[in-house]
C-alpha cells in the first residue's frame, strides 16, 4: 500500500466536544421501577406503561445475540443510565427559551434550529441525549396536515395514531435490543403524512449523545398514509469519551397503499480512538412495512460508531411494492460493522434492490449480512443485489454473508459481489494527471460509492462525501 493512501485516513473526530449542560439523569440500573419512572417523567398514559413493562419482562427472558461478526466485552446493563435529559423546568413555548448552550451545540454541529435563520428548508427534530429539544418548521408542516414532532408530544397529542402503529412493524418481542428499547425508550421522532400529501420539505432528526455513562434509546415512527410521499434524514454525533456507550434505537416505517418513504441516514457517532478505546455501540433495529404499490427506500452512510450492528429491512407485504437499500459502510482503525438488509417478499410482483459498498481500512472489520426471502405466494418477485468491498491495507477484513431463500419458481434473483483494492496503477494514473494522492483516493472512493451517494438528498450527499474523506484520511499508504 502506498504511503499516499496511508496518509489519508486519520483526521480527528470533529464532533467530539462535550456541551456543559445541566442534565437530569436517572441513576444507573434497570428494573421495573426505572421503566415506570421513565414513563412517569414523561407523563405517559397507562397503555404505554403497560406496553413498556411487557417489553421489559420479555427482555428479561431474552439472551443478547452473539451471531454478528463483531466482538466486544460484555455490556453491563445495570451500569448504564437509561434516561438523561437537559434540565428544564417548564415546557418550552418557542425555541427562544431553549438553553443557549444547547443551541450553540447544534450550531457547532451545523444543524439549523433557529427558524429565523432557516434557509435550508429542512424541518429538524433535534434529540439531545434522551429527549427532543426542539422541532422546527412545525407550523409550515401543519398547513399541509403533516405531523412532525417528538415522540413524547405525539403520545400526548395523537395517542390514537401512536397506539395504532407503535410496534406494528417491530414488535416489542422482536429481538433483544428492540425489547430493551421498547422498555426504556425515552423519546424520538414521530411523523405522519396524511393521505395523498407530498411532504413539502425534507424532514430531519438529529441525534446527539452528550451525557456520559448513558445509553440512548430513541424510537422513530414514520407513517405515510395512502399515496403520501416523505423524505426523511437522520444524523448522529456524540462526544469523544473513553468508555463505550450503547445506542439501541428502533425505527419503524409504515408505507400504506401507494405511499413512498425515503429514509436517509448519515451515521457519524464517535468511533473510538485509533486503538479502539471508547466509541458508540450502535445496535439498531430498523424496519419498514410496504403495503400495496408502495415504496420504501433506505439509504445509509455509516462512518461512525465503534460497532455498528444494523439491518434496515423491508417487509414487502403488499402486491407491487418496492424495497430499496443503498449503503456505504466505512470502517477504519478498530471499528467493526456488521450491517446489511433483509428484503422479505410476501406480496406479488414485489421488487427489491440492494446496493452495498463496504470500505475497510486500518484494522477495521466490515461485514455485509443480508437476506432476501421470497415466500411461496410472492409470484414474480424480483431482486437485484450488488455488494462490493474495498480493502485499504492488509490488517482489515471484508466479509459477506448473503442469505438467499427462494420458495417460488417465478422469482428472479441476481446477486453479485466483488472485492478489490485501490490499485497503485489507478493512483499513479491520477497523480500523473496532476492530482494529489489524497485527491486521487478520494476520487476513486467517490466513484466506488457513487451509486449510493446519488440516492442521497443533495445536502446530505455533499456531507457524506466529506465525511468519507475524513474517515479515510490517513489510511492511504
Amino acid at each position: 500500500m502506498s504511503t499516499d493512501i496511508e496518509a489519508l485516513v486519520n483526521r480527528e473526530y470533529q464532533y467530539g466536544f462535550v456541551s456543559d449542560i445541566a442534565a437530569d439523569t436517572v441513576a444507573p440500573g434497570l428494573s421495573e421501577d426505572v421503566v415506570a419512572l421513565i414513563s412517569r417523567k414523561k407523563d405517559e398514559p397507562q397503555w404505554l406503561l403497560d406496553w413498556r413493562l411487557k417489553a421489559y419482562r420479555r427482555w428479561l427472558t431474552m439472551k443478547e445475540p452473539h451471531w454478528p461478526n463483531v466482538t466486544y466485552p460484555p455490556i453491563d446493563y445495570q451500569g448504564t443510565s437509561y434516561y438523561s435529559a437537559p434540565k428544564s423546568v417548564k415546557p418550552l413555548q418557542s425555541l427562544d427559551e431553549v438553553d443557549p448552550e444547547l443551541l450553540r451545540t447544534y450550531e457547532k454541529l451545523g444543524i439549523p434550529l433557529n427558524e429565523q435563520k432557516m434557509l435550508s428548508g429542512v424541518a429538524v427534530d433535534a434529540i439531545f441525549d434522551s429527549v427532543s429539544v426542539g422541532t422546527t418548521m412545525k407550523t409550515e408542516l401543519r398547513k399541509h396536515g403533516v405531523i412532525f414532532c417528538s415522540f413524547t408530544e405525539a403520545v400526548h397529542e395523537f395517542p390514537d395514531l401512536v397506539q395504532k402503529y407503535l410496534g406494528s412493524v417491530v414488535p416489542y418481542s422482536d429481538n433483544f435490543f428492540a425489547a430493551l428499547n421498547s422498555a426504556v425508550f425515552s423519546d424520538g421522532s414521530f411523523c405522519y403524512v396524511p393521505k395523498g400529501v407530498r411532504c413539502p420539505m425534507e424532514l430531519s432528526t438529529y441525534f446527539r449523545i452528550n451525557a456520559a455513562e448513558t445509553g440512548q434509546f430513541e424510537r422513530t415512527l414514520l407513517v405515510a398514509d395512502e399515496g403520501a410521499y416523505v423524505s426523511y434524514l437522520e444524523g448522529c454525533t456524540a462526544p469523544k469519551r473513553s468508555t463505550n456507550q450503547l445506542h439501541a434505537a428502533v425505527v419503524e416505517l409504515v408505507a400504506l397503499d401507494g405511499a413512498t418513504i425515503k429514509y436517509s441516514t448519515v451515521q457519524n457517532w464517535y468511533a473510538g480512538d485509533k486503538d479502539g478505546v471508547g466509541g458508540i455501540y450502535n445496535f439498531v433495529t430498523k424496519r419498514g412495512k410496504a403495503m400495496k404499490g408502495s415504496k420504501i427506500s433506505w439509504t445509509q452512510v455509516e462512518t461512525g460508531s465503534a460497532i455498528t450492528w444494523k439491518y434496515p429491512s423491508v417487509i414487502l407485504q403488499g402486491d407491487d411494492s418496492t424495497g430499496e437499500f443503498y449503503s456505504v459502510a466505512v470502517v477504519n482503525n478498530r471499528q467493526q460493522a456488521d450491517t446489511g438488509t433483509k428484503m422479505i417478499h410476501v406480496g406479488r410482483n414485489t421488487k427489491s434492490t440492494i446496493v452495498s459498498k463496504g470500505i475497510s481500512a486500518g484494522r477495521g472489520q466490515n461485514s455485509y449480512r443480508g437476506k432476501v426471502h421470497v415466500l411461496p405466494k410472492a409470484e414474480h418477485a424480483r431482486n437485484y443485489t450488488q455488494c462490493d468491498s474495498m480493502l485499504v491495507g492488509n490488517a482489515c477484513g471484508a466479509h459477506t454473508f448473503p442469505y438467499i431463500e427462494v420458495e417460488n419458481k417465478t422469482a428472479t434473483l441476481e446477486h453479485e459481489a466483488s472485492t478489490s483494492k485501490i490499485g497503485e496503477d489507478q493512483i499513479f494514473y491520477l497523480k500523473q494527471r496532476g492530482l494529489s494522492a489524497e485527491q486521487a483516493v478520494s476520487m476513486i472512493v467517490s466513484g466506488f460509492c457513487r451509486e449510493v451517494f446519488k440516492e442521497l438528498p443533495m445536502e446530505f450527499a455533499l456531507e457524506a462525501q466529506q465525511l468519507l474523506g475524513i474517515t479515510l484520511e490517513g489510511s492511504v499508504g
Partner: protein
Amino acid sequence: MSTTLAPDLAPQADVARQLGPDWLLPVREAALAEFSRIGWPTTRNEDWHYTNPSAIAEGKFVLAAPDERATGERRTPTGTAAHGVTVAHLAPYTFGQDWPLMVFVNGRFAPMLSRLGALQAGVRVTPLAEAMREDRDFLEARLGTVARFDEHAFTALNTAFMTEGAVIHVAKNVEVAEPLHLVFIADEQAEGTISHPRVIIAAEPNAKVTVIESWGAVGTPRHVSNVVTEVDVASGATVTHLKMQRESAAAFHVGTVQVNQAKDSHFVQFTFQSGAQLMRSNIYTHLNGPGCGSTLNGLVLADGTQHLDTQTRIEHVAPRCYSRELYKGVLDGEGHGVFNGKVYVHPEAQQTDGKQENHTILLSDRAQIDTKPQLEIFADDVKCTHGATVGRLDQAAEFYMKSRGISAEHARRLLVYAFAADVLETIENEVVRTGLEALVLERFAGVVV
C-alpha cells in the same frame, strides 16, 4: 451383534474399540470424544441452518459388526455376485470402460467384482482394510491428517468407525493414464445400515491422477453412506476427483472431501448429485502453497422431496492462488436445494484470485432453494467475486423456440438440458462428460442416447 448409533455413543465406543488395528485406537477414541462433545448437528448450527440431519440421528441405523462384514461373494452361472449385486448391476456406473476398478457392495470391498490387475508402475491402489493391516507406516502418516474431525460430527463418526475404503498412492512424476474408478453400490441388504467408507488419495510431487467415485443402488434401500475422502496434493501435482452420486431415493448420503494443496498444485473436482432423499456434500480445500489452485464445479438435480445440500469452503492460506467455482442446480417437484460457498482469504494470501458462481433454476411451485455465497477476506491485494442467480427458464427463449415450431414441453426440456450441459462441459474426461450429458438428456429431454 449389531448396535444402534445413539447420541450418547456409549455402546458404540466398544464397537469402535474392536475394529482395530491397535495403532489406530487412540485416533478412534479422540474422534469418539469429539463426537460426544459436539453431538449431531442441528439447524441451530450455522453450517446446518438449512439442512436437518435428525432423520439420520434418529433413524436407528446400525453398523454391521465385524463378523458380518463379508459380502458373500461367489461365482454364479451368470457371473460374479456379491450380496445381490452382479456385474450387470454395475454396468450403468462404469461408462462401458475397463478402467482399474474397485467395487464396494453395501460399504464393503468386493474383490471379485473389482479389477485391479494391471496397474501402471508407480500407482498403488489398496483396499483400506488391507492397508490397515499391512501398510501401517504409510497410513499412520496420512490417515486423518487432511480430514480433521474437530467440529465435524460426521467426519468424527467416520474416523471412529471406518474399516473399508480405498488408499490411492501415486509416486513422484507419474502420470496415471487411466482414471481409477471406485464404485459404491448398495442393495436391499444395506437396509437400515450406516457405512463409513474412507478414501485416501495421495499424489506425490508432479504426479497426475484422476479418481472417479460412483455411488449407486440396486433397488431402493434406506441406508446411510457417510464417506470421507482425503486428498493430499503435493507440489506441482494435479488431482482430478469426479464424483457421481446416484444413490437410492430412500438413502442418506453425507460426503466430505478434504484437500490439502502444496505449491503449484491443482485440484479439480466435479460433483454430480441426483440421488438420495437427503444429501450433504462438504468440500473443503486448503490452498497451502503459493501458486496453487482449486476448481470446484457441480450439478445438482433434485425432484420428489429430495433435499440436496452442497457446501464448499476454500481457504486461501498462501499467496498467488486461484479458486474457481461453478455450481448449478435444477430443482423440480418439492426438491429443496442448498448451496453455501465460502471463500476465506487469510491475511498472507495476497494476490488471491477467486471466482464463484451459483445458478439455480426452479421448475415447480414447490421447489425451494437457499443459497449463501460467502466471502471472508483479510488481505487487501485480492480479486474475489461471487455471483448467484435464481430464476426460471428464459421465457423469451421458450417463445422463440415455440415460434419455430418446437412444442412448449420440448422447448422447456431443451432449455433445462442446455442450462445443465453448460457446467458438464467443464469436465475434461470425455467419457464421463458424455456419460453425464446422456443422463441429463435422458432425464430432461426424454431421449435415450
